[in-house]
């Protein structure tokens, strides 16, 4: 290498070649990085999935049952199905949240013959867009489902697209031992509920455990207040975008909630529901409005200590009979590789035998088929089943009853904003309404 002629040239040579080449390349890498994000819109069409089995003696199943207990239930059900029909189920398990977030790509690609999903708006939406298979003839062979469940499985065109498997109610959970110790009584009106909360505060408890870091738990609180104040039909219409969010009815829900917020555990936006449930388990909180799955956070010997009541009545003309009880179940792909086997599997899943397996294996959910032998239920499960059985209307949960884009990009930030600053309800509702109009008209 010749000697450098100028100072600049000398200095430039001090930089190792690998680094010297970096400035332009890092620029390209940066541009590529920025575009990788920008490009996701285009990539959205490239979703693919493994679909095991083709015709004959197999049927493939896309499952979101990534947690141990539901996974175990599904494995046992498919093993029993193989014994009874000789058809093997190839289960393709995907992480629960990932499955939910990729559902659009999944259904437009090559979905499995049968896949896990929820009842509600989104199910009907897929059915209307032709992304799910009609299973009305399977329903012709099913028995043991109440009309509410059949209705929850029906698409906008009156055909069935969904086979329910399990469900769980949302209610206010508490520990019997804590309530006995302080002599608390189950409240049946909002006033009693408030009085109870105030008493718990005096007793050094956090009245209502609360967490909303992930954005969805607060939807449960909104739902139950809305159901109690405005009733089920208003909930359905509001979720469908037909009612205005700036109406006095919605405002009253938030006003009531604002009145209850001082009873809620503070700083909820940094807390996960598991942490809030543990504060109930550790007897630091008095009660917690959540789904039946709250029991997961309790030890085996504490299960009998868990009890619950449905959220008290607010308006006597509305009553306290409606509640959120999301239904999980199965759907069929629009073009399954083996439609015959897929329908056989769905029929089996909706049957009594599969229900019995679930009763024995999963204490966290209730079986949708009323024909199943529920003698294996825990006391908590029995009570939960009675509660749902006595409900006049069953809602699915805010994010299952409305458009997912509205729920995740508008409602979650809005509810978190409300929890942060409960004073400006009017401004918040105007903002929701403006966004709702834009989303629901597109």
């Amino acid at each position, binding site marked *: 290498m010749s000697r450098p002629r100028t100072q600049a040239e000398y200095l430039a040579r001090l930089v190792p070649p690998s*680094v010297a080449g970096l400035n332009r390349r890092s620029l*390209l890498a940066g541009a590529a990085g920025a575009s990788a994000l920008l490009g996701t819109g285009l990539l*959205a069409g490239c979703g693919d999935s493994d679909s095991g089995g083709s015709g004959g003696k197999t049927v493939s199943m896309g499952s979101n049952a990534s947690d141990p207990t539901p996974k175990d239930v599904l494995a046992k059900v498919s093993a029993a199905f193989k014994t009874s029909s000789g058809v093997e189920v190839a289960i393709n398990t995907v992480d629960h949240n990932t499955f939910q977030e990729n559902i659009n790509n999944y259904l437009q690609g090559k979905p499995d013959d049968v896949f896990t999903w929820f009842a509600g708006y989104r199910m009907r939406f897929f059915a209307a867009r032709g992304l799910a298979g009609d299973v009305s003839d399977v329903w012709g062979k099913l028995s043991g489902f109440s009309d509410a469940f059949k209705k929850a499985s029906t698409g906008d065109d009156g055909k069935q697209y969904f086979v329910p498997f399990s469900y769980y109610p949302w209610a206010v959970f508490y520990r019997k031992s804590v309530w006995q110790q302080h002599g608390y009584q189950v409240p049946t009106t909002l006033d009693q509920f408030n009085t109870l909360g105030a008493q718990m505060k005096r007793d050094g408890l956090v009245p209502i455990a609360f967490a909303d870091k992930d954005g969805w738990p607060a939807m449960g609180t909104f739902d139950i207040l809305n159901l109690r104040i405005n009733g089920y039909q208003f909930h359905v219409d509001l979720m469908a975008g037909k009612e205005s969010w700036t109406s006095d009815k919605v405002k009253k829900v938030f006003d009531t909630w604002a009145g209850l917020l001082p009873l809620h555990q503070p700083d909820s936006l940094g807390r996960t529901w598991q942490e809030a449930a543990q504060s109930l388990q550790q007897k630091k909180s008095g009660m917690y409005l959540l789904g039946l799955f709250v029991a997961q956070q309790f030890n085996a010997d504490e299960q009998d200590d868990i009890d619950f009541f449905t959220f008290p009545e607010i308006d006597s003309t509305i009553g306290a009979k409606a509640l959120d009880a999301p239904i999980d179940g199965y759907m069929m792909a629009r073009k399954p590789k083996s439609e015959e086997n897929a329908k056989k599997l769905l029929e089996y899943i909706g049957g009594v035998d599969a229900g019995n397996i679930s009763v024995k294996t999963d204490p966290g959910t209730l079986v949708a088929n009323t024909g199943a032998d529920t003698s294996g239920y825990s006391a908590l499960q029995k009570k939960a089943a009675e509660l749902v059985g006595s409900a006049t209307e069953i809602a699915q949960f805010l994010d299952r009853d409305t458009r997912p884009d509205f729920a995740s990009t508008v409602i979650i930030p809005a509810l978190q904003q409300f929890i942060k600053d409960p004073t400006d309800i009017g401004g918040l509702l105007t903002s929701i309404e403006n966004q709702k109009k834009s989303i629901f008209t597109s």
Partner: protein
Amino acid sequence: MSDLPLIQADRAVEPPAATTTTRGRGRRLRLLSRTDRVVITLMVLVPLLLVSALVWLPALATVALSTTNWDGIGPLGDIDFVGGRNYSDVVNIYPPFVPAVQHNLLWLAALFVVATPFGMFLAVLLDKELRGSRFYQTALYLPVVLSLALIGFVWQLIYSRDQGLLNAVLGSDVDWYGDPGVNIWAVMVASGWRHVGYIMLLYLAGLKGVDPSLREAAAVDGASEVNTFFRVVFPVMRPINIIVLVVTVIESLRAFDLVWVVNKGRNGLELLSALVTQNVVGEASRIGFGSALATIMLVVSLVFITIYLATVMREDR
């Protein structure tokens, strides 16, 4: 420089025959053999195709999609054009947008003012061949190597309000992740923790390349340590400094991962990149609206890229 693109593409792949082509510019291009011409054509075409297919096409598609209301379902023929409505929605009725822009700028400022200088400072210290400097080097670089999921988990253990290390040690009950006035700083500490290690390594590599005779000469001339660094070493490191600067800007624009792990970019942690992801990826599938956000991000990035390119090209002349 009419043949600028040719030269650019050449250098991007660093062909072994670079000397031939640069010397054979213009008139002498015809003297190249057939093989040479094929090689050159390939060298231009392949990167050009890659860049168009992987960078420009998606970027243009994003811009195009941003004027639609596509929900990610159904054939492209069904897409309705809505003109600028997505943009007016973003600016007028989308509450997270303004905080997101502010947070991105805050992020840039924090990395630029605190994290980057600190990383450079650590590199200078480690360059002194302290005892156990390899250990420190590894310790500082470790955060860059760790997987994101793990980092999110580690910081959750530290920052959790009820069960976290920080509140247990300080005896406080600050809601590190939930309080929208606090969480952006908490996450920036975590992000800075990664960034410092990255800058430290980059800068250390540069420092190792500085000719020791320069420092000796400065020492002979009686310059102090501080003067030696700022008057001699720092100017010599100009190429590295530019890289560090660009890396800092890029990192702050694509800041995303930690925020996403913490709370999916909500409640005080809004960032442009997180908003794009919230809208486009996942169940929401507001592809049109999300693309409008992405286009805004592209424009912001282009500002920095243009400044950088202008600087570099002026130097090349």
